[in-house]
């Protein structure tokens, strides 16, 4: 608006220049996102690591469990670009395969968090006063739990049940982290919905007789999506860190499965010989963390409709 000063001649041509192309909310957000260099860099790194993880058998030079006799704790060389660990396994291959576990934990946990958070957050905002009170007090209680403690307990409980037999230890780690991590997202959804309920467009929809379901699905949920996507994006690296911490304490993903946390733990015993078994997964962790952080920052700016 500030550019439209009266001093500018031939107003019509200038207004044409200033006019924005007509774009929907999502197209506009995407446009703003790709203008943010850090966010794009983060997105590219995530996509590259994600693709490498999916196509690990093709991309990785060796299998994660393959051992090279006589090649223990080598520094990087021609055949092992990031060196080898104390079992004679290729660090690069293990980092690539490890990305499968670490990334899938980070991402799948968000789906569990989203499912629980939508039910509790939307339930609290849309249900009656009693439902709201009960659900929010429950949220307070889960919030009061120290998260790592709760994850460790849940992981131990779930690992002993029949569920673990069906789906394996990796899923137990997902579930434990997801069951603990939904609190902030649920509060976010509730807060958004409560404020949306009072907004003019919702009241307008009510007054023309739209059904409750239609108002929630058509008018309220789309407005909560932005902040929730941002929260979940920031949640990915936290979940990866938490899973890595569990592996480091020794109760997460077990060797020979590769996971960045247990690789770091294994590498620690031989750190004086070579730092590469630690540096490789630690660098991958830091890279993924920063990428999601930049992407989250970019999404937060891009998805804010007021930033237009």
């Amino acid at each position, binding site marked *: 608006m500030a550019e439209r000063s009266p001093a500018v001649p031939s107003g019509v041509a200038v207004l044409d220049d200033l006019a924005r192309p007509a774009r929907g909310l999502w197209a506009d957000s995407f446009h703003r996102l790709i203008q943010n260099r850090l966010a794009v860099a983060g997105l590219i790194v995530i996509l590259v690591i994600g693709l490498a993880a999916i196509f690990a058998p093709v991309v990785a030079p060796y299998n994660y469990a393959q051992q090279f006799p006589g090649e223990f704790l080598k520094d990087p060389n021609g055949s092992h670009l990031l060196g080898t660990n104390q079992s004679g396994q290729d660090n690069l291959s293990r980092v690539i395969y490890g990305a499968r576990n670490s990334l899938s934990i980070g991402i799948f946990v968000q789906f569990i968090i989203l499912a629980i958070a939508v039910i509790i957050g939307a339930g609290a905002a849309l249900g009656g006063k009693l439902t709201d009170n009960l659900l929010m007090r429950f949220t307070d*209680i889960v919030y009061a739990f120290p998260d790592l403690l709760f994850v460790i307990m849940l992981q131990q409980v779930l690992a002993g049940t029949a569920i673990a037999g069906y789906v394996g230890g990796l899923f137990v780690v997902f579930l434990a982290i997801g069951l603990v991590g939904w609190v902030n997202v649920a509060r976010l959804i509730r807060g958004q919905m409560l404020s949306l309920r009072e907004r003019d467009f919702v009241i307008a929809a009510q007054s023309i007789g739209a059904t409750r379901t239609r108002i929630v699905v058509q008018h309220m949920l789309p407005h909560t999506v932005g902040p929730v996507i941002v929260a979940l994006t920031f949640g990915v690296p936290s979940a990866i860190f938490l899973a890595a911490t569990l592996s480091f*304490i020794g109760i997460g993903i077990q060797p020979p499965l590769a996971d960045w946390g247990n690789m770091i*733990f294994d590498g620690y015993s031989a750190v004086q010989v070579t730092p590469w078994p630690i540096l490789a997964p630690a660098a991958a962790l830091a890279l993924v963390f920063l990428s999601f952080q930049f992407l989250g920052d970019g999404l937060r700016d891009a998805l804010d409709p007021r930033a237009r």
Partner: protein
Amino acid sequence: MTGYIVRRLLWLIPIVLAITVITFALMHAVKGGPFDQGDGKSSVAAREALKAKYHLDKPVYVQYFYYVKNLVQGDLGPDLVNQGTSVNDILKANWKPTVALGLLSAGYVLIVGMGLGILAAIRRNSFLDYISVGFATIGASTPNFVLGILLVTVFAVELGWLPAIGWSTGWTDWKPVILPTIVLGSLPAAYIARITRASMLEVMSQDYVRTARAKGLREQVVIFRHIVRNAMIPVLTLMGPITATLVTGSFVVEFFFAIPGIGRSYVQAIIGRDYPMIMATTLLYAVVIAMANLVVDVLYSVIDPRIKYS
């Protein structure tokens, strides 16, 4: 204000009770009790007798009733794994390193985090600012155990300046304290530095700061009385979550540095299925975090008199 604090403290009671219920249910869902695996010395009969002594042969809800009854009397229960000791004994023997580590790290977080954030904002785009932003970025993207490995390798193994494991034995024994404090505090310090810097920059562009300068106040007065004090409000909001980070982080750090604190005995308790110890630690930490949140909320109104609780 007093009424508000009392109400918040009373609200702790249902929270603590709910946590005991959840923890109790979870721990009993875990397969295998503390006396299920024989240690080779005790007979089956002896193990049954132990179970009976600790009411482990009764239904879960009866066990829970016994637990709460003792809890109200301040008795956290017997330590099931180490015979003859109680959880109270273990906590009494182990609380000092944990509390000391927590306080030292909190001090480190405040001094380094806020210090770097304030300096970076005052000297924006200077070398110091870049160092501070770099610290905030790297510190936030490195899990504490990775930082631990790096620091121990450099300062303990290569240089030999500081011990790699263990904890201080007295006031003059300061060397073992340094690495654990830095490892535990760096991630929250990085976070605080980032938020402090952003908050300072926002406050510095406010009209009242320009007014303060315009009326000729000394720069230090402008910075500390007008900028820092107002910039602290968003930073203070984080102190609750940061306490939680320090508390849970202490498990990993105590485990990593073999510090004889509560965090390490918790990890051991999990492996040994030592129910009373697990519950006691969970309760203790939940209460600590709740109290920290209360203190933060009270501090708000001290820093910003506009905030009033009724």
